[in-house]
């Protein structure tokens, strides 16, 4: 054992941890496991795997199950899915009523469409504002770049809830924006901005902008600038070089940023709850109300399943893009 003073405290801790693990690995119990096919590597893989399976995947299965059951008074407020009808027979009742309900009631249908519409246009707006920002940051002199990144990240680290709240004060009829506009004489009557579609778009773009800017910035910053120099050397004007070289190369960043905004925005709850009114139907809020106000767990589950079905394609695209990103580094 290396003597006193040769290793620092930190090193001693690391070495002890490693030796402890090695002790486990050499123990008879483990050797038994080993003989039957389990290896140390498998243990390392298993830990996060089991956690995610138990707490991420299985819950979805349960949601699926409950979306097929009936509401009933009691705790929990739904009927069990299967029942023993006699000693040897089990009946499984799949209640499709919840899903039928979703299709029949116009409320849900409009809410889904509205959510997709709002998410889509918000993503577009985020892209239109965020791309120039990311571009400006990536082309800024190196000393400035870190400062700018910090400035973008700062709002992200402060409370999402509080930042949405900040807009309430600004958008009210007696709020700051109206005060300023009235003062300048631009308008005679205060504008109604809260509880409108405008407020929702503003809220989503405001909150999700960093999610668009950061992946775009990461992509643009890594771009080889000599490509643009080569283009200029060959006679290509800057605007055209942007369209034919920079833009296509940044496509990966655009895709990642857009999905990071679009998918969560579809299911957004806080912004429609705080900035929107009864006319601004978004499916996230519908789910919440269904669950907390109506106490109808089966319908809420059905809403969640329908939302998942709608979003499964974008989610899988995102998984694929992320996977490629990670692999590309090697």
């Amino acid at each position: 054992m290396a003597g006193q003073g040769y290793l620092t405290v930190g090193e001693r801790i690391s070495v002890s941890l490693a030796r402890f693990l090695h002790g486990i690995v050499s123990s008879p119990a483990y050797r038994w496991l080993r003989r039957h096919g389990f290896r140390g590597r498998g243990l390392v893989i298993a830990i996060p795997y089991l956690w995610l399976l138990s707490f991420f995947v299985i819950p979805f299965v349960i949601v699926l199950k409950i979306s097929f059951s009936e509401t009933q008074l009691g705790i929990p407020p739904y009927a069990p899915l299967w029942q023993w009808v006699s000693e040897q027979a089990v009946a499984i009742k799949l209640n499709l009523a919840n899903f039928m309900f979703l299709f029949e009631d116009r409320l849900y249908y409009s809410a889904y469409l509205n959510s997709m519409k709002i998410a889509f246009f918000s993503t577009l707006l985020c892209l239109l504002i965020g791309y120039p920002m990311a571009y400006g940051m990536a082309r800024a002199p190196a000393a400035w770049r870190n400062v700018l990144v910090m400035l973008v990240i700062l709002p992200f680290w402060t409370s999402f809830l509080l930042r949405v709240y900040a807009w309430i004060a600004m958008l009210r009829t007696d709020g700051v924006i109206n005060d300023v506009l009235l003062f300048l004489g631009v308008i005679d009557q205060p504008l109604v901005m809260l509880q409108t579609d405008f407020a929702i778009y503003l809220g989503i773009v405001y909150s999700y902008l960093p999610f668009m800017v950061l992946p775009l910035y990461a992509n643009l910053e890594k771009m080889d600038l000599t490509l643009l120099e080569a283009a200029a050397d060959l006679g290509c004007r800057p605007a055209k070089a942007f369209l034919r070289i920079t833009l296509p190369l940044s496509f990966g960043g655009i895709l990642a940023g857009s999905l990071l905004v679009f998918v969560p925005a579809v299911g957004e709850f806080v912004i429609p709850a705080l900035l929107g009114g009864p006319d601004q139907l978004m499916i996230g809020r519908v789910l919440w109300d269904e669950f907390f106000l109506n106490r109808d767990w089966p319908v809420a589950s059905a809403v969640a399943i329908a939302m998942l079905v709608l979003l499964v394609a974008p989610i899988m695209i995102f998984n694929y893009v992320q996977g490629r990103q990670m692999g590309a580094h090697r």
Partner: protein
Amino acid sequence: MQRRGYFVLSLLVFGFAFLYVPILLMIVFSFNAGKLVTVWAGFSARWYVELLQNDQMLTAAKLSLQIAALNATGAVILGTLAGLVLARFGRFRGRTLLSGMTTAPLVMPEVITGLSLLLLFVAMEATFGWPAGRGVTTITIAHITFSLAYVTVVVQSRLATFDESLEEAAMDLGARPAKVFFVITLPIILPAIISGWLLAFTLSWDDLVISSFVSGPGSTTLPMLIFSKVRLGVSPEINALATILVLAVTVMIVGSAIWMQRQERARQREVQMAQAANE
């Protein structure tokens, strides 16, 4: 060329103004003597005093801090393992599933995760008797589940740019794989792990939707409290809270940025000196 430069610059300024004006206004009005958040009635710090005397707020804040710290630590352990596995273990059965399970939470709408976890806890309680009722435990488990995905991304991308020959050299000199991880890999990727911890902490501290689904009586987190207050209207105490938060975060971020800059500059100087000394 000049005109394009100005165009981009003005868009940058507009973008940052857009991000910061609401926050700055909130800070300004936290010092408003009056109750209305739209009419300035003089300078006063009374809301800060009231905030610090509000027991409900303080309890909720303490609870949120506890949960966030537990969550960050748990997420870092699990996320580092997952990141290590995905970056180093090559192909193995079920890799695609693990990869999917660690990227889907990044975009999954919170209402869905919240609902699904609550239903899981209810089913678990009915079957095993644990968790008994919902509270700190269930909130922590829920938070760990979604924040570990973020830590995985951070660790995985750090490991991807990590020079594998360092690990090979250590093995070549006689260290077994576990030792290599703890003595070589971990110390070098420590900054990434720390930023993962901070990221997980912030996500948990700030979370409203998932907490609302999986919390129980007596476990009201700070965001839940803020939300219930804010639904009723604007409250200057919230402004004070927001200001404290923004200042704390700003100090931390700016402080760490300056510290890192200084480290980097000192390091560069050392490298240059070494090169010069040998010429």
